[in-house]
């Protein structure tokens, strides 16, 4: 306990003395964690958005006007036997026209003036959440081959495309964050090394009186740890401010697209992991910087 108090006190004194360099180090860590956290935040929200859209995803089977009861029965049997289908609803031509008039009241008069109803009858299929996209695609292909089927529209196709863009963006984000993390780690290591060189006489005296290596390295490792902690704290605070700003500006638009509660901050578990990661980053920097401390005074 006495040792830990000494490490923390010495680390804080050293941080204050080398505050300009330490500021650079803290800023680099903050930038790395901010980028990583930003992509995690964006990814988590897009995942939630896509999950909501996926849960609401339908595929629709449109009938030709001359489709027979047997053909409709064949499609019904296929849907009933499919593991990816959660439910289905038949929509007649008349119901489709009513919905059109309800959804597009400005066009209702024009639709009513037509000699014949141009909208096809259809079956709206609700998919099970997490349904295998491959299985859904196979089902759509199978149904599209049944005589009497005019078209099969599958919502998930564009959701999959959105998902692919999300995955790509997340991958690039993680790559960028990884580069910044390495840069931050090196910055911490160099700043701590500067502190080590500034106190080389002290380190040498400590080693010559027989101080344990852990006692010599401890303050420098804690210094890295403090830099990591400060940098991460700054990053999380900035991330939260940015999130609240975006929520105030775009929250309504997102809610209208995907419902309330879609736009949320990082879960507490992930935030904790981010903070621990920042601390570990600083700690590793401190350890790397003091790796050669033994060589300062002991030839082996």
């Amino acid at each position, binding site marked *: 306990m*006495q*040792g830990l108090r000494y490490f923390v006190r010495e680390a804080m004194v050293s941080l204050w003395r080398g505050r300009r360099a330490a500021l650079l180090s803290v800023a680099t860590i903050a930038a790395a964690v901010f980028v990583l956290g930003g992509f995690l935040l964006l990814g988590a929200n897009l995942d939630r958005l896509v999950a909501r859209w996926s849960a609401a995803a339908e595929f629709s089977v449109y009938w030709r006007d001359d489709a027979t009861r047997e053909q409709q029965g064949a499609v019904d049997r296929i849907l009933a036997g499919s593991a990816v289908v959660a439910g289905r609803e038949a929509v007649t031509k008349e119901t489709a026209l009513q919905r059109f008039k309800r959804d597009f009241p400005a066009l209702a008069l024009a639709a009513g003036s037509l000699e014949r109803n141009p909208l096809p009858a259809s079956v709206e299929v609700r998919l099970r959440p997490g349904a295998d996209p491959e299985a859904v695609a196979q089902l759509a292909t199978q149904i599209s081959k049944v005589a009497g089927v005019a078209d099969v529209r599958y919502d998930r196709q564009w959701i999959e495309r959105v998902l692919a863009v999300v995955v790509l963006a997340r991958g690039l984000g993680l790559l960028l964050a990884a580069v910044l993390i390495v840069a931050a780690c090196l910055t911490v290591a160099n700043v701590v090394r500067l502190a080590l060189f500034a106190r080389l006489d002290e380190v040498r005296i400590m080693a010559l*009186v027989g101080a344990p290596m852990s006692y010599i390295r401890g303050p420098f490792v804690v210094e890295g740890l403090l830099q990591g902690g400060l940098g991460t704290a700054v990053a999380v605070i900035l991330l939260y401010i940015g999130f609240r700003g975006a929520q105030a500006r775009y929250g309504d638009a997102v809610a209208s697209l995907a419902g309330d509660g879609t736009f949320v901050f990082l879960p507490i578990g992930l935030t904790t992991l981010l903070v621990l990661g920042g601390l570990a980053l600083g700690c590793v920097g401190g350890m790397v910087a003091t790796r050669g401390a033994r060589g300062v005074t002991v030839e082996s």
Partner: protein
Amino acid sequence: MVETFHLSKLYSRGVYALRDLSLKVDKGEFVFLTGPSGAGKSTLLRLLLREILPSEGEIIVAGRNLARMSANQVQTYRRSVGFVFQDFKLIPRMTVLENVAFVPRVLGAPVATQRRKTFQVLKWVGLQHRINAYPFELSGGEQQRIAIARALVNDPMLILADEPTGNLDPDLSLEIMNLFREINARGTSVIVATHDRELIRRVGRRAITLDHGSVVEIDDQAAVDARA
């Protein structure tokens, strides 16, 4: 206490700092190492501190072979050796009290023990009234006394001093040497490296003269003369 056998130290640039050096210092003895600059005095002290390793030969201190020590054993060994440098090597940002208490503190001694030992040793070197002063506020002689107090605070069996009076005038030098004599009188072995022959004569102890890394003279007479 200290014995070296055919000790050599070859630095990487191909220069021998010590060559085939064999000598013995008894327990409780006070010995001077003397000789011109580059004779190998500091190298021998660095070897005795286990700061560097010999290229050939062996060094035995209190029955332990310094070349065969693990890193942990080196730490334990160093706790039994005190050192004093010409340039004092005090930590400028620390007060007198902190500079001396630094040793028991880094060795993990309880706070009460740190304070007791530090006050004891500062009283002994006569600087208990300067505990809150910083090194730059002290004279050269006072700074060296603080360095000696730091070397003594852990009750070492051996004190190594490298040109401890190099930065001091003759009167202060003698004052510092008297401190070493008192330390020695308490049973601690003392090895002092100096090129000041006049000082050796005035203190009167065995003097080992080195030149080009080898012993050229062992002057037991200095001690005899001084006692006479």
